[in-house]
């Protein structure tokens, strides 16, 4: 059944009239024109669609929109832009941490949640946080380095 559903996306209030079982990912991509969250499998197996729901990473591909009414969603577009990247995005560019890049927006969201909770993660913490993400190109070592670098940059920024 189509219903009016209100939620917060990247800090702004939005309302959509949509079937409540529609995946959050489809609403983000096709109703709100936020194309940075990507469809990979629709099965919660690859992490390409990862977004933050009230600060926690969730798979947007299978999350029904009806269950997120009134809550706050953050997508890659809420992190930063190509012109003004978030320190995490900047670290990924500095490390050239990616090849095809399809997996990166989801990985960045899990990394964001990790650093929000744990500003000084160990390599093992980062691996654990990213282990539900798949990358087929083999950019893993660069991605891990980029998250470490971003963590250091963010810590310095807070210390200053």
């Amino acid at each position, binding site marked *: 059944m189509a219903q009016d559903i209100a939620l917060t996306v990247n800090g702004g209030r939005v309302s959509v009239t949509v*079937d409540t079982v529609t*995946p959050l990912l489809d609403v983000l991509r096709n109703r709100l024109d936020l194309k940075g969250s990507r469809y990979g499998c*629709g099965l919660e197996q690859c992490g390409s669609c990862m977004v933050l729901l009230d600060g926690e990473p969730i798979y947007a591909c299978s999350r029904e929109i009806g269950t997120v009414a009134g809550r706050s969603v953050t997508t890659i577009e809420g992190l930063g*832009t190509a012109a003004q990247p978030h320190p995490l*995005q900047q670290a990924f560019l500095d490390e050239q941490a990616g090849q095809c890049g*399809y997996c*990166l927006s989801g990985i*960045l969201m899990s990394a964001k949640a990790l650093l929000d909770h744990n500003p000084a993660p160990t390599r093992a913490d980062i691996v654990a946080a990213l282990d539900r993400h798949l990358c087929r*190109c*083999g950019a893993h070592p660069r991605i891990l380095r980029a998250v470490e670098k971003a963590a250091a940059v963010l810590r310095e920024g807070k210390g200053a």
Partner: protein
Amino acid sequence: MSDTLPLSIQTNRRLEKWLRFNSDRTVRLAVGKVELGQGNVTALAQIAADELDVNLDRIAVLAGDTQDAPDEGQTTGSQSIEVSGRSVRLVSAELRARVLDRLAQRLNCSPLELSVEDGVIRRGDASTGHDYWNFATAEDFARDIEGTATPKSHTDYRVVGKPVPRRDLPAKVSGAAFIHDMVRPDMLHARILRQPCRGANLASLNEAALRRAERGDFRIVRVGDFLAFVGSDETVMQRAAAAAPLHAKWDNVRQITPDQQDAAWLVGQDSNDRVLGSDLPAAETKNVVVASYSRPYVAHASMAPSCALAEYRDGHLSVWSHTQGVYPLRAALANVLGIAPDMITVRHAHGAGCYGHNGADDVAVDAAVIAIQIPENCIRVQWRREEEFGFEPLGPAMHVTLRAALDDAGKPVDWTADVWSPTHVQRPSTGGNLLTHEALPTPPPDPRPTDPPESNGGGGTRNAFPLYDFAATRVLHHLILRPPVRTSALRGLGALTNVFAIECFIDELAERAGLDPVAYRLSILSDARARRLIENVAERCNWSARGPAGTGRGVGLGWARYKNKAAYAAVAVEVEVDQEVRLRRVWCAADAGLVINPDGARNQLDGGIIQAASMALKEQMRMEGDGITSLDWESYPILRFSEVPEIDTEIIHAPDLPTLGMGECTFGPTAAAIGNAVAHALGARIKDMPLTRERIEAVLLK
């Protein structure tokens, strides 16, 4: 002169097809190679910037466009920099020379007195008042490319050889960046009910039941046994297509038996056979050793399901695709649809990494067939995950038996590789069919299996000849005629299995001879570049202290020169093995001659190591009954963050030597090094990939 020109120039002699000076003081560089996530387009821009003497940020690249970019065939085989890079270098040097020659005539001076600084032309220390943008005219572009201008010496490069950031990454870490994200006017979404196999007929579709079960509006487009759900709401199309197979009945579906999914099944099947190399019969000595190695069917397993957009307006078909080759796709579309090629435009748009021939071209035909039925709308088709796994062409299974006749010192004097494999390249241009074509009312003839010629590196025979100093070598190639599934190009083609086989066998022969595997290799190898890499890697991994076999910890090494003519790579791997293989560290050394972008190169080398490790340890496509049964990431696991090792890669710089394609060169050596490291750890050898827990148990029980 022209016979020495790169193929890319031979088929695109018009200068303006490649280069143009834009009014905004940029340079338009158009190339036929496309960005597949490897940074090749950034590297091509670096080459043009240096030859033209303009800053890199002035080079605007158009890559893959049948309207406006040259035809450079497919983006495959690690050829972008070797072939397209050489072309861009020659074309840029020629344009620079033409402009300077003309200005020199006008100034009545020698062209040698003129120089260019970010596009501004100087005479000695003084500006001439001229630059590319105000001085270049149609006259400079009038003649066909001659290829006579002398490119710069590598000592004069400013951006070639420097680690330049990729141009496409900022978008990919911040928002819309892929073909999947494109929105066109009047766009409709579509999903496909796939014909289970060639020759299958759709006996019935219970449309009423499907419409009752799946809420929302969709239109059904049916052409022969091709059927698509089309409408404005992507969610509805996805649901309808996911449910459709339950409501569809197909006749004439082929059945796959479980034994067909294994490489061993290939041996003895109907095949086209040929003998390459020595035509003498295999030699007999006192010591003849034989061993067999294999890889199963594997998937490209792109992170994104394939996607395409097509629109048919005023009799012209426009297609956007993440294809590896816009011109070959245009030719295939023309053939399938019966439309003249000049009434079709194909433009490249970025997709997820494909690593070869995946569903990219098939989905483009899907979109085009629907667009012809629904003109004036843009049709966007995206495959479902299970469709990508279930219908993309697979990397073929391979079975390789090696035979070495040894001399008294335990070194081969005669070597035979017996290779059984389905085709490694099955594109429409090489005897293959695109999926949807087979579902149309007039399907194409049966696929005609061929493999790339040896001059292109071969397919199943890729890297089958060892580069050691053996007196006689031969390859018996059996091209399997009727494999159970469609197969086509996957990174490295036959190199993964052939290098795995050769380098594992060499370790076995060293052990028989009672020699250290590195010392044994060096005693039968005179190629100086290869020796240097092996010595480099052996030293960095502390090879001499690797310890005895059978301790559960192992170190192994492998090397190859990709296609026996492209880049060299040596890889050493440290593993720990108990129930499963854990990769600890990897050391790599590579020699690709002049490297255009060292950071991009390193990314490719390391990525190849991880992907090859994933295949060697984990990957096998399962199939049974009416098709593929590995349809998601749980049934087709790949290497994860927690399983990826530390990698230490060193590029041996050789800027005075020609650039060698390196995107695939670590693939075979990595699989081989893992095979050898696991054998060292276990004190027993697993010869069939993937090296799974079951195979470890089996070899230890022997």
